[in-house]
């Protein structure tokens, strides 16, 4: 079995080679195997199998309702909040199965998430980033260092360094989304999940986030759900295309390949139809 998945591992190509140090072959960070997902009795995902490589950007695309957000929420077990929702199969993360792990808090620290709509905490910009580190019991020096480091890594530092004490709600939409990213970086994650992070942003703010993602992919594994195919093509190294299986009304993986291959020579007819805008 393991030989097979090694065989399927895509040839990785950097989206912006000039920004990447080395675009070599990378390890698989998340290994998804025969993953199915149920909301109570309705099946939302069916038998997904693919690997998400480390320190790369993986895009998940597909029409509305095909289960992209559901899949993302399996990776950090956010679905635990939905009563009677359950996953079947496995998602291996550094040898541990996410589906069955009991160390939820540690998992969510290591696999962070940025949501479509930023939710600023009702406190200052500084406290937004410092909130989780403080609750985790870090000392004040370490918290301070984490705030500066995270805001810098999220490309927000220069804009807010003189007003860290201001309320976070005074920031613009694009800044808020970068604040969400900073907040997530503060607890030292390894993987960052992003669910349509730019869907509420103008093109300039979107471009900033995209640059940031490419920058962050030097150190972090990024999985992004997007409806914007240009965005997927611009930033991602690999793309997964999902579709709702009309007969069974549940999401399936149609094709997973290096982004340029998927967009230029799709292997599946349905992928081609989707990316050329013939349906979806």
């Amino acid at each position, binding site marked *: 079995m393991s030989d097979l998945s090694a065989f399927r591992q895509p040839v990785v190509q950097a989206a912006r080679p000039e920004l990447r140090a080395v675009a070599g072959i990378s390890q698989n960070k998340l290994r998804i195997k025969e993953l199915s997902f149920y909301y109570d009795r309705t099946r939302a995902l069916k038998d997904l199998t693919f690997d998400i490589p480390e320190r790369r950007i993986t895009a998940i695309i597909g029409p509305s309702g095909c289960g992209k957000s559901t899949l993302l929420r399996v990776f*950090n077990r*956010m679905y635990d*909040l939905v009563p009677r929702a359950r996953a079947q199969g496995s998602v291996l993360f550094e040898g541990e199965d996410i589906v069955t792990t009991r160390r*939820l*808090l*540690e*998992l*969510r*620290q*290591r696999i*962070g*998430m940025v*949501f479509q*709509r930023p*939710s*600023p*905490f*009702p*406190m*200052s910009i500084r406290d937004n980033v410092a*909130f*989780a580190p403080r*609750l*985790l019991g870090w000392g004040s020096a370490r918290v301070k260092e984490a705030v500066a480091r995270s805001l810098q890594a999220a490309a927000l530092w220069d804009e807010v360094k003189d007003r860290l004490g201001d*309320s976070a*709600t*005074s920031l613009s939409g694009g800044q808020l989304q970068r604040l*969400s990213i900073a*907040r*997530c970086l503060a*607890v030292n994650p390894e993987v960052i999940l992003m669910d349509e992070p730019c869907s509420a942003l103008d093109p300039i703010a979107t471009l900033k986030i995209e640059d940031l993602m490419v920058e962050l992919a030097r150190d972090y594994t990024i999985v992004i759900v997007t409806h914007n195919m240009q965005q997927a093509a611009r930033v991602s190294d690999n793309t997964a295309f999902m579709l709702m299986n009309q007969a069974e009304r549940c999401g399936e993986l149609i094709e997973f390949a290096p982004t340029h291959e998927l967009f230029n020579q799709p292997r599946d007819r349905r992928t081609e139809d989707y990316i050329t805008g013939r349906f979806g």
Partner: protein
Amino acid sequence: MPARNVWRRATSSLARGAVYGLTAVALIPLGLVLWHTVVNGLPAATHVDFFVNVERPVGIPGAGVAHAIVGSAIMVGIASAVAVPLGVVSGVNLVEFGGGLARAVRLAADVLVGAPSIAIGLFAYVLFVAPFHHFSGMAGALALAILMLPVVIRTTEGAVALIPAGLRESGLALGLPRWRVALQLVLPAAAPGVITGALLAMARAAGETAPLLFTGFGNRFWTVDPTQPMSALPLIVFHDALTPYPSLQQQAWGAALVLVAAMLVINLASRWVVRRQQRFAGQL
């Protein structure tokens, strides 16, 4: 101008007139009560004696209600110290964790909100007075706490339920435990509503007589000891207004005025807190 337009305007001004008129009618009794309280209460409440001395026998000048002001403050203070933390935590729990226990608590709170306060007084008598064989400020405070608890629970629940799910999810996605997200992220975001609820519950407790009749009972002498019977402003109003002596009746009006003024202060305080909090809660 077409006739339909004229007709429309006429109905509109008629409706507006009716709304203003009815609002005025509704405000009249309220205004009268306030006016009477101020006019009748001022003669007593403009003496320094009134605020520093305790009750005196009829006919002896210089009487005051200092013991009742302090008694009210102590009993409402203890009641709040018990009811507010307990009520806030159960209110948060209702929203964040739900389940069978939460449904039971919600039902109990609803029943308790509707319970006549005299019944709560009797209940407190059986629990906190009878076993100790004497009235006490503590028993009065606990009766008031029982009165406050359901109000605090339900207002907290309402305020917390209004917080968008995104805030909770963002906290949980950082790997923080559920209870910490509930108490340290969601609850502060709901603080304006929660604080207002607590202050209104306090105001209600401060104005109640019935729960104190056979718990705090009243006391004509100075005491700050909650194991002793204790006076309170509503008790002064209740007892003194029933006497035939004009000087005591005046004292009752004075005590009523102090109560109304305290309510005003509490209300203004809650508005101020809400405004201050909203600076940060902003566009949540």
